[in-house]
């Protein structure tokens, strides 16, 4: 697990080979290969996201734009998946369909064995609250709530008891090394700290899946790697499925599997 105080393996390498970029890159690649080797031996659970011929068509004026085209996927419980692709490739649309924020135009999508395209608006809200944890590029923490209360927000919508919520919030803050920032407002935190807080918030209701849309897009490289590693730790700790959308291939390589998209299709 990374923190501001504890150095990541990458940081250790950076310090060790300070000034020599070739050596750094070589050492990093070796480290990632080591991690992947470990991941490839991992045992996953049942399928939690199954899509079949999933398509999404948007109407822009009189034109129809196919954002997703016959996407079929199977993502398992405990898997750490990165969805990559250029801008407009359909990766965010796919994430939104998995997160029940939108409904497919064609095809089916089952999340944790539920066909979410058939759920009512109310049931979808409950589904998002209980099953999904969202992490956004811009964190979206409540600016006038302190960190602890920010973490509690999903619990509020779940009508979790206050004491229970507070206990979970404190525990999650500890997991992301923010115990000493519980009373701070978001504007008193750094970008990395805010994203870690956002991840902790996503874990409040113990979701099966974390969906992260460009979670490192607003961070520097150091924090970006730290966040990607944090997802790994989360997956390890909570057996949560993590699906990250990113356009950064290097960051995507931290995931167990990379799904590449192009023009609304899965290309590899």
């Amino acid at each position, binding site marked *: 697990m990374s923190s501001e105080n504890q150095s990541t393996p990458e940081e250790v390498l950076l310090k060790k080979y300070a000034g020599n970029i070739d050596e750094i890159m070589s050492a990093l690649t070796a480290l990632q290969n080591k991690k992947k080797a470990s991941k490839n031996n991992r045992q996953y659970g049942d399928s939690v996201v199954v899509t079949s011929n999933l398509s999404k068509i948007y109407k822009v004026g009189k034109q129809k734009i196919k954002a997703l085209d016959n996407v079929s996927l199977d993502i398992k419980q405990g898997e750490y998946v990165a969805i990559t692709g250029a801008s407009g490739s359909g990766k965010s649309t796919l994430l939104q369909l998995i997160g029940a924020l939108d409904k497919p135009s064609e095809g089916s999508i089952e999340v944790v064995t539920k066909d979410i395209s058939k759920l009512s608006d109310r049931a979808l*809200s409950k589904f998002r609250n209980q099953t999904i*944890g969202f992490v956004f590029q811009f964190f979206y923490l409540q600016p006038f709530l302190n960190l602890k209360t920010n973490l509690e927000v999903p619990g509020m919508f779940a*009508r979790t008891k206050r004491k229970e919520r507070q206990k979970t919030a404190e525990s999650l803050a500890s997991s992301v090394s923010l115990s000493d920032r519980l009373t701070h407002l978001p504007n008193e935190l750094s970008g990395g700290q805010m994203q870690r807080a956002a991840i902790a918030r996503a874990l409040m209701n113990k979701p099966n899946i974390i969906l992260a849309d460009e979670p490192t897009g607003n961070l520097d490289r150091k924090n970006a790697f730290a966040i990607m590693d944090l997802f790994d730790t989360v997956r390890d700790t909570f057996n949560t499925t993590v699906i990250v959308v990113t356009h950064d291939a290097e960051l995507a390589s931290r995931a167990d599997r990379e799904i590449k998209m192009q023009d609304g299709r899965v290309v590899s």
Partner: protein
Amino acid sequence: MIRMSDAFTLSLTKLKTRRVRLIVTTVVSGLFFVVLAFASSLFNGTITSVEEFSDDGFGSRYITRVDGIGGPNDYLLYEDKDLIAQAKIIDADLIARKKVVAKELGITYEPTLEQISVFPAGPNGKEGIQETPQVKELLRGAKIEQSKGFFDAIEKAKDEYDVTQQYQSVALNSNGPVGSTANIPTLVVIKDGKEQNAGDSSQYQYAATGIASLPVGLTLMSDPVLETFLLPDQTFITDYSGVIPIVAPYTAAEETLGLGKLPATSSSETRLERLKEVRSKVSGKTFGICLRNQASLERQQLAEQQQLELETNKNKKGYIKPDLVYEKSASACQDVVVQRDVRSAQTKKDTAKQEEFDRRFGKQDASQRILTFKIVGIVADPPDFGGFSVKNLVGSLLTSNLGSGWFMPFSAKDKLPEFAPLYSDVDLITNYNNGIYFELSNPEEAKRFVKEKSCSFDFLSGGDPSVLCQEKGTPFFLSSFGSNSIALNDAKTGFQKFYFRAALVIALISAVIMMGTVGKVISDSRRETAVFRAIGAKRFDIAQIYILYTFMLGVIVALFSVGTGYLIAYIVNARSAAGLTIDALIVYNSSNLDRTFSIVGFNGKEIFGLVGIIILAGLLSAVGPLVSNLKRNPIRDMRDER
């Protein structure tokens, strides 16, 4: 639905955004409500204070003035053929009698110079009566006959309503200064032993205050009405001394004590001290007023003219002085004295015969006497409407008086027999300075009486009101008299109706103003709403947060409005309450000088109602933006925010 405490936590964050806009919205949308809160305090404080003072004064009595409609129609009367025929007979009889007496006294009488009662037919071919002394009784009888319907209706109304007392008043200044009506004497103020320009009655026309107002403002009023204004230990009971009890205006009471009017800038303490001094010293204070009949007044005017003529011509050669010259007496309220009399014996004899002739046909001899008035009570002066201010506005509500001027108890009317012709007019309804009053048992009965029996008609529809009102059986105009008690009683409900209607109108305006801020906050929060939806908030949860936010905004506007309204009320009260207290002490003749007047009052129904309306306005302002917000697609909002 999320827990209220959680909804409160989340909605509180909305109040922390756009604080400047929040403050501006609170102030702008709350301004009109501030006025309403202030008005509520002002109204209720005033009503409460007036009611407290009314315990002592005149304010809790329910008296209605009854003015007649459909009484004598002078035009019809003066063209009545029977009356014209009778008037011609009276004129002829008078001329015949004067001819006989003139012949008996050996003087010349010219009948063509006689003022006759029937003027000849004009272009319309109709003769008409003019009111000469000889036909006065004839016309009076006809007028009484025409007034019969009114007085019958009066009697009937007394049976229909709970009328506890009937009163009457007679204004002795029926046509301007006292004495300007034929054969009615004139009152002349005596100051420092001298009459104040006796003979020049025009000077009194506009004297509104002080002793000089007495000649133009003396009214006889039924004793039970006046009793309210008696000073401690005083009564209206008269003895044989000829002293006349009178209720004086406050400024006149000050004047009789030789006290000048206090400057307008005087402190309330000074005014209160003055009030105490006046009340203690003026009780039983006597002063004299000269009463002159018409003949006496004419001789005063003659003496004045002659003296002026002599002064003007004193150095003129060839000027011949009149044979008989009068001058005013050195003492007040005396007849003129003869300064020069060089008339021949024959002239004196002829003049005496002419005077005897005039005397036989009703001309009075000169007569004057000093009336001694004793101040037994005080009434407030007419309000001074010196521009708009809260004090003047509230002051105008302080009404516990009988109009303005001086009042004599009706029981003392025999002390002024010279005014008897006016007393007899009370059974006519032509003289609007005469009044008939009903005291009713309670405000509801008084209101019912006014509502049911006061004649109303549409002026635009034409027709003769007197005929219309007579036909309806309601030949009256009815109005509250003496106090605002009925009006204030009405005002209590009337104010609330107006207040809440105004509040609703203002609420709509405020809702529009608040909608700007609420709409902005909600639209600014689209991304946040989208995030909340993404992490599991139902549409109703979102609605709950914003409804609570607008509720809190409404509470803030309400607190601002009520707080500021009452703050202003307290400030205004601090500036004007002391002055109003003095006014109220005078107006209500309060025996308890420790009472205080306050314009700060509280009416729970109005204030909590106002708070409710403000909050409703806030909620109303949220409806549009919220519905629009909830319909939005969270994905699009998240995407748009990037």
